[in-house]
C-alpha cells in the first residue's frame, strides 16, 4: 500500500463529512454515517498493514536476488553480481517494511545492472527476478475484491 493508513483514514473521514453527509437525508442514515466516522477515527492509530504480506514479498525478493547474484558470478556478470550482493547486504534486517523498501530497490538496481549485459549472461538473472515479479503480482491480485468501478463511475 502506498497511501499511509493514517492518511487513508483521514481522507475517508473528510470525504464522508464533506461530500457525502450533506446529501444524506434521513436522520437515521446521518446517525449511522457519524458512527462510521467515529469508528474510522478510532481505528486510525491502531491499525497497520499485515506483516505477513510484507514478509512474503521480502522473502521472495531476497531469494531472487541471491539466485541472480549467484548466477552472475564470474565473467561478464561479476560487477553486476557484486552490486546486487552489496544492495542485499545493505538492506536492514528489520523492521520488515523498511527491509522490503530496500529489497524492492535492490531488485530495480539488479534489473539496471544486467540491462547492458549480453543476453547469455543476463537472461538467467532476468528470469529469476522476473519470476519473483510475476509471483508477487499474483500474490497481490489474489487479495483483490471484485471491482466496483462501474458503480464508482456511474454514481
Amino acid at each position: 500500500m502506498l497511501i499511509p493508513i493514517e492518511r487513508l483514514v483521514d481522507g475517508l473521514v473528510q470525504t464522508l463529512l464533506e461530500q457525502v453527509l450533506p446529501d444524506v437525508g434521513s436522520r437515521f442514515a446521518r446517525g449511522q454515517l457519524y458512527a462510521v466516522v467515529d469508528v474510522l477515527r478510532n481505528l486510525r492509530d491502531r491499525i497497520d498493514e499485515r506483516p505477513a504480506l510484507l514478509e512474503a514479498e521480502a522473502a521472495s525478493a531476497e531469494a531472487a536476488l541471491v539466485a541472480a547474484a549467484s548466477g552472475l558470478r564470474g565473467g561478464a556478470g561479476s560487477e553486476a553480481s557484486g552490486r546486487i550482493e552489496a544492495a542485499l547486504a545493505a538492506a536492514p534486517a528489520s523492521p520488515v517494511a523498511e527491509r522490503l523498501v530496500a529489497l524492492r530497490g535492490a531488485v530495480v538496481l539488479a534489473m539496471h545492472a544486467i540491462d547492458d549485459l549480453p543476453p547469455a549472461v543476463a537472461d538467467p538473472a532476468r528470469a529469476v527476478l522476473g519470476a519473483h515479479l510475476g509471483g508477487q503480482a499474483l500474490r497481490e491480485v489474489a487479495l483483490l475484491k471484485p471491482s466496483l468501478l462501474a458503480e464508482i463511475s456511474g454514481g
Partner: protein
Amino acid sequence: MPTDDVRSRLERFLQGKLGATTKITAFDRSTEGFSQETFVVEATTGRRKRGFVVKREPVAGLLEPYDLEPEFRVLHALSDDPLPSPPTPWFERDPGVLDRSFYVMERLPGEVPVPAMKADGSGPFDDAERAAIGPQVVRALADLHAVDWRARGLAFLGDPGPGTAAARREIERWAARLERTAYPAPPILATALLWLRRHAPATDVVTLVHGDYRLGNFLVERAGASTRLTGILDWEMVHLGDPLEDVAWCCSPLWRAGSDLASALMTPDAFAAAYAAVARRAADPERLRFYDVLALVKMSVIMLTGLRGFSDGRTSDLRMAIFDHQLPFLAMLLAMTLGLPVG
C-alpha cells in the same frame, strides 16, 4: 470553491459569451472522468437552451502538471471537422473566473459506457450495439489519424520526427512523470521501462494521437443496430506520434470490461486488422506489443500520480485512493505482457 459558487460564476462567464439574459437552468458535477473536474451545464438564453460541458483543471489530478490549453487548441481546431469531437468554443485561463483554467465544450448527445462489468455480469454493449459501434470506432480512429495536423495548425504539439523518436519521447514522458510522483519506481515498472527502452520501434508516419482513445471516452447514442458513436472525449493526452499507440491503447486489457474484447467491441486482432484495412496502414505486431507495454506503464504512472495527490492531502477524492489496490492488477498485466512467469 463550493459547487453553488462554481455555478454562479460560470453563469456570469456564459452571460459574457451568450448574452446578459443567459441563465444556467441545469447544473451537475459529473462522476465520469477522473482526470479533470467536469461540470454538465444547461444554459438558457431567451427560449434557446444549449448544453455545455465544462472541464476545469483539478487541484490534484491524474495528469499533473496540468495545462489545458493544448487540448483546447486541438479541440477548437477540430471543431468544424467531421470527426465526432465536441465543438469547443472557449478557453479561460484567468483565475478570477473559476479559480483554475477551464474550457467549455458543446454537449453532444449520448452516454458514456464505462469500461467495467455491471453488477449482473453484463458488459457495456449488447450484440447489436457492438456490431454497430465497432466499425464506427475503427473508422473514427483512422479519420483522427488522417487529420492534416500541419494544416490545422497543430504543429505546436511537437513533431517527434521519423524513426524511433516518437516511441522514445513517450517512454521519457512517462518516466519523467513517474519520477515526479517521488515514489520509488515499483520493480515491475522499472523492469517495463527498461524493456521499452530496449524495444523502441520506428514509425514511418507521425500523426495526431488521441492518447486516450478507448471505451470510457466514447459517447454513444444507443439504438440497437443503429447505435451511433456521437463523440470522442477526453483529449488530455493528445500529442503527435505513432498512430499504433492509439490502436494498442484501445485494445489494452484495461478497457475490456470483463470480456476479452478490445474496448468490449471486438477481439484485439480483429480491431487491429480492421484498423489496418481502413487506415491503409500495417498494424505491425511488434510495434503493437511495444505500445501494449507502454499502455500499462502509462496507466500505472497515472494511478501513482493520483495516489501521490491523495497521500499528500491535496485531494480527498476517494477515486484516487482506489488506485492503491488497482495497481497490483496492472502489475500482473505487465508481468504477463512482458512474458514473465505468473503463477
